[in-house]
């Protein structure tokens, strides 16, 4: 047998192992009498004049039969589409006709065949935005307000900063790193939080970490495909991409808040993110030399970094599974980490003093300043 053909052997062995498990069921003795594990996750609630339309996904080891539904501890009539048990990872929509009151809180409870209960709270009932052209435009506009406009405003800091010469540029880059470190932690945290709400068998938490890692390596490879790290406008582009993916996540958060009726939270998020994102304008331009700045470049970078917020706001109002949202945050975190690495490397290269640049007055004050600014403006986005 040739060496290459022998590669088939381990595959056969694995198949044999699976067969032994399926045929002899060696662990059945241990699981005897264990009731089937029923698990469902309530993924999305659409509210309209009819009542509540609830998307439910089954996650347990066996199909789940939802037998009855309660609203605020009262059994309610409902219709299920498609009817019958929900298969593993399958989903169904429950229409619960209800004369709901605008702005009120409602507690939904799903009772399964075995009597297990799964709860979901509608924080404030409001008609789920319909996806007509006017509403989509409005949502896109919110995205622009959150993503693009603040970045353009942030640009206004640039001339002032570079007027300080090398020191100013170092400060701006260190500030950028500070901002990005905050965004990295924040994005990861968001991703992990959302992942926790996804059904466990999808391994959403792992997806956040792996999504981040793969993105980081991919962007590093693309950035350094010519053999040297990106700098100048090219580095600015990567910063814009990283921030863009992060802003996609912000947009999703805003859109989702609208969709689930947390309009007060959503409008608060809009203002908070907008102020927060002004700093992103400084970050994008930090590696760019003054002579390279053109209006097209400025607007182009602002769109790359900001427009994804529009996309996110719109997508977020649809029934997005927590898994994909979590993965988006993971990808965003990876992109931000790549930018941190590249900005750091650019900063180090910009001076012969190498690592000492980190501990210069501009380096330390910039880095800490970035974190403090983000932390302070983040208070504006308390949910």
């Amino acid at each position, binding site marked *: 047998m040739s060496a290459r053909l022998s590669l088939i052997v381990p595959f056969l062995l694995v198949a044999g192992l699976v067969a032994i498990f399926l045929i002899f069921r060696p662990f059945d003795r241990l699981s005897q009498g264990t009731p089937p594990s029923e698990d469902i996750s309530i993924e999305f609630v659409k509210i*309209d*004049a009819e*009542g509540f339309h609830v998307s439910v996904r089954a996650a347990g080891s066996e199909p789940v*039969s939802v*037998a*009855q*539904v*309660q609203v605020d*501890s*009262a*059994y*309610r*009539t*409902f*219709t299920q589409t498609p009817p019958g048990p929900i298969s593993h990872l399958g989903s169904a929509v429950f229409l*619960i*006709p*209800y*004369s*709901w*009151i*605008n*702005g009120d809180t409602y507690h939904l409870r799903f*009772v*399964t*065949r*075995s*009597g*297990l*209960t799964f709860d979901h709270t509608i924080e404030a009932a*409001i*008609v*789920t*935005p*319909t996806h*007509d052209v*006017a*509403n989509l435009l*409005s*949502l896109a*506009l*919110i995205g622009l*307000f959150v993503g693009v406009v603040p970045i353009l405003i942030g640009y206004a800091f640039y001339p002032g900063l570079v007027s300080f010469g090398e020191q100013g540029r170092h400060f701006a880059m260190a500030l950028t790193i500070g901002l990005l470190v905050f965004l990295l932690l924040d994005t990861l945290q968001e991703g992990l939080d959302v992942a926790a709400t996804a059904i466990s068998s999808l391994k959403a938490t792992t997806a956040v970490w792996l999504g981040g890692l793969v993105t980081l390596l991919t962007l590093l490879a693309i950035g350094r495909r010519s053999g040297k790290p990106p700098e100048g406008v090219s580095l600015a582009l990567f910063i814009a991409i990283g921030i863009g993916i992060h802003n996609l996540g912000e947009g999703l958060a805003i859109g989702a808040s*609208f969709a689930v009726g947390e*309009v*007060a939270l*959503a*409008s*608060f998020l*809009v*203002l908070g993110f907008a102020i927060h994102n002004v700093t992103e304008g400084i970050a994008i331009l930090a590696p760019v030399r003054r002579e390279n700045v053109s209006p097209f470049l400025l607007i182009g970078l602002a769109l790359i970094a900001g427009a994804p917020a529009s996309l996110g706001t719109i997508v977020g109002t649809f029934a997005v599974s927590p898994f994909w949202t979590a993965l988006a945050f993971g990808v965003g975190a990876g992109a931000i980490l790549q930018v941190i690495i590249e900005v750091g490397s650019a900063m180090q290269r910009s001076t012969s003093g190498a690592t000492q640049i980190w501990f210069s007055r501009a380096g330390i004050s910039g880095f800490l300043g970035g974190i403090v600014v983000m932390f302070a403006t983040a208070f504006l986005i308390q949910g």
Partner: protein
Amino acid sequence: MMAGSTNLLKRLLSRRGLLKAGLATGTGALVSGTAAARLGSGVTPADALLDSRAIGRTDGRIPGSFQNASSYTGVPGHGAFGENSVVGEVDHARNGFDPYDMLTDWETGIVTTAPDGQVVRTFNVTAVDKDIEIAPGVFFPAWTYNGRVPGPALRATEGELIRIHFMNEGSHPHTMHFHGIHAANMDGVPGAGEVIPGDEFTYEFFAEPFGCHLYHCHSFPFKRHLHRGLYGAFIVDPDPARHPEFEDVAQSRLLGSPENRQWQEFVMVMNGFDTNFDDDNEIYAVNSIAFAFEKKPVRITRDKPVRIYLVNITEFDPINSFHLHANFFNYYDHGTTLEPTHKTIDTVMQCQAQRGIIEFTFEDHGPGMYMFHAHQAEFAELGWMAHFEVV
């Protein structure tokens, strides 16, 4: 209606302010309702709210409109905004018991007379584990007496010698603890009449005092043995010969007597089920099945008075209650008196294991659907909701 060219953002940003102002002035729902109606399409409940506010109502309902109209007629229908009920039907045949039949299903045992003239009444009761459907599609791993929850409604007459042959075919030790007067070794508690699986025991005592009583398992863990379904009514009818001063009343309570046949008698055991074992009931009912008597109202005629033997064996909640619509009743706490302990009331509460007899008549009423339910609204909405169909 479409959002049109109105700026969503502007509305959203201003909504928070409006909401705050609204909370202060009490018009918040009105203001935000407008915003919501615009945001979506078509007529929303918020619009209905708007209209009802405009005509001075504060409950968000339009008089005489859709809301649960069917509940008041007792006719299962489909309101515009759904109903407070369960979806589907319980398979009573598979359960092996029907809550409706249980209302009048008295277990009177086998009656013999000893050589000395003592009347002896013998019952056979077997404990078995059984999954029962307590609401459509919701199954509960019950422990039962004779395969039903509540267990058989044992009925005897004051002064009889009672013998209960108890067999345990369940998976845990069980007892039958009677609320009555008996010797310590007949108490049906661990150490006195507890029966291990596969074994049996005969409880023996005189039926006294007369009244509306109950029996239940008293094995440990006590709470779990109770809420798993091991309980039932134990009715002791008064012996008219022992109560000359109230002989007619005693006669009417004596099952099978001519006076008793002038009554419509029902036994109702108020119970609950903690289906997810979090020490809080997900289902409340009379005779176990949620909304059973809403889906099939209890039919009564106007020409005979009604007597209900009411027992509360609800676990976890300290009290349960019975409330009758459009009428009042007399109440005999524990059923141990022949004169009412409460006269002309329409709501009575019972703590855990408390019970009593309710008597009323609908002779002066028109025919129709008359609601009765726990006046803990939570219990009612979780299944303890019912109707009398008066004909």
